């Protein structure tokens, strides 16, 4: 993997974007890549838009943050409004449901997927939406292997809820395979 991924996960406080970023970064490490994970702490983490960032690279990562992501996930309209302008030209934009519909950044490669709906319908709760999202992201960009992601899920969740999260991850992978990306 020669590419350096600069990933920003964004959404609303409580959607688990920081946890998602931690799981993704740890999965990358398990895969043998380098990774850094950071987030903005502050009042905005309680409601409002929240963001977490991950760098993945096969080289050493010096600057640890993400100024301009080449992969941006937006799970709420507020997050889309706040962060979409930061995407690098031609970057990958992953949007949950109808987030940002009609306002897509020109030139971005847009992947639209009902992430939260998949979690709710198949797992009975929005809680796993962050893990579904990780499946979607890796289904699109193949940043971290499935084996490494499973191990990361096992490390980051209590044993009791690991199976449900593996299911959520696989639902995300399957959903990603069916997405038709578009550019406006």
């Amino acid at each position: 993997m020669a590419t350096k991924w600069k990933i920003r996960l964004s959404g609303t406080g409580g959607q688990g974007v920081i946890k998602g970023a931690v799981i993704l970064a740890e999965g990358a490490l398990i895969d043998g890549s380098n990774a850094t994970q950071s987030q903005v702490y502050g009042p905005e983490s309680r409601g409002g838009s929240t963001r977490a960032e991950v760098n993945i690279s096969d080289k050493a990562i010096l600057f640890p943050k993400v100024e301009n992501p080449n992969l941006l996930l937006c799970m709420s309209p507020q997050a889309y409004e706040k962060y979409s302008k930061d995407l690098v030209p031609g970057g990958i934009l992953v949007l949950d449901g109808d987030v940002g519909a009609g306002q897509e950044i020109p030139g971005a490669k847009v992947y639209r997927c009902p992430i939260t709906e998949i979690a709710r319908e198949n797992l009975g709760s929005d809680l796993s939406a962050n893990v579904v999202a990780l499946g979607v992201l890796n289904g699109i960009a193949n940043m971290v292997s499935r084996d490494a992601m499973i191990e990361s899920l096992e490390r980051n969740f209590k044993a009791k809820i690991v199976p449900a999260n593996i299911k959520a991850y696989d639902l995300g992978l399957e959903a990603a395979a069916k997405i038709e990306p578009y550019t406006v």
Partner: protein
Amino acid sequence: MAKVRLVQGNEACALGALKAGASFYAGYPITPSTEIAEHMAEMMPACGARFVQMEDEIASIGAVIGAAATGAKAFTATSGPGFSLMQELVGYAALTEVPCVIVDVQRMGPSTGLPTLSSQGDIQQARWGSHGDHSVIAIAPSSVMETYYQTIKAFNLAEKYRTPVVFLLDEEIGHLRERFEVDPDEAVEIIDRKQPTCAPEEYLPYENVEDGVPAMAKFGQGYRYHITGLTHNEKGFYSSALPVVDTFNRRLLGKIEDHVDEIFESEEFFTDDCDVLLIAYGSVARSAQEAMEELREQGLKVGLFRPITIWPIHEEKIKALCAGKKAVIVPEMNMAQYAREVRRIVPSETPVIPLSRVDSELIIPEEVAELVKEVLK
């Protein structure tokens, strides 16, 4: 066996402290250092060590000094406002020569400032926060792995030189999660304070020994002696006799400043072969290194000097490294607190240019690169 894990800087600090043998923690939680207290509270009881949440930062450092006097390896963790409160007793620890470690995860100040956001604004407070002419040791790591190993070193230096050591994390590194690959059973050097070998009645807790660091008996174990914040003689009792006071103050400063070669640690990149030398520490050093690598790919001769030890400062080394450079640029998240030192040290024919960012965001590599290009134009 070392297993690769994703670990936060503050957790690495806690793990390093335990590895160093920390047996006592007293603290008052404060953002962005709180994770250190959380991890210590969880880990220490399982190792038979003591964790105490105190009523405030003054009490915290007081408890740390008391525990350390009895022989414990004691520490606390705080951030700018708490570190300010601790200053009087930091001076007390320096004067009474009680080894301890104070972790300061720097956040934007002054005062309450921006509690969750980053800064490197405590560089000078670490050196001059308490009154009087004592010296201090301060360390600023740049990565999660380095945080672990330098925390161990902080405890070792405290023990070796009988001094408070300030561990200057910044919020960026404290909260950053990245690769952590450490064998928990790895053999690392652990230094314990020198113990007296004489009979208790002959013991001089503040003896004017050649290396400046007298042996330190564990309080309450047979060696009776006096600890006071007053200037004291070799026995530890108040003295205002001129030669006693003069010798004491010179020893207190010299035991650290005269050993800068042993204490000082740094990293250098292309320092021999550069027109512009960057000097950066902590999280900002990562941005400086990335800028340097990009600029060298473009054929520009840029080097980086990264002090890991912030205090004492290695004046001779900095003077030698800066000699003959077109310019020295010091990027930091404060208003030139380290640049001020570099300026003081480097002869005036070499321009020392601060690059200050004080909006609470980490300096980005592009900012450093732009300034270098401007200087080389």
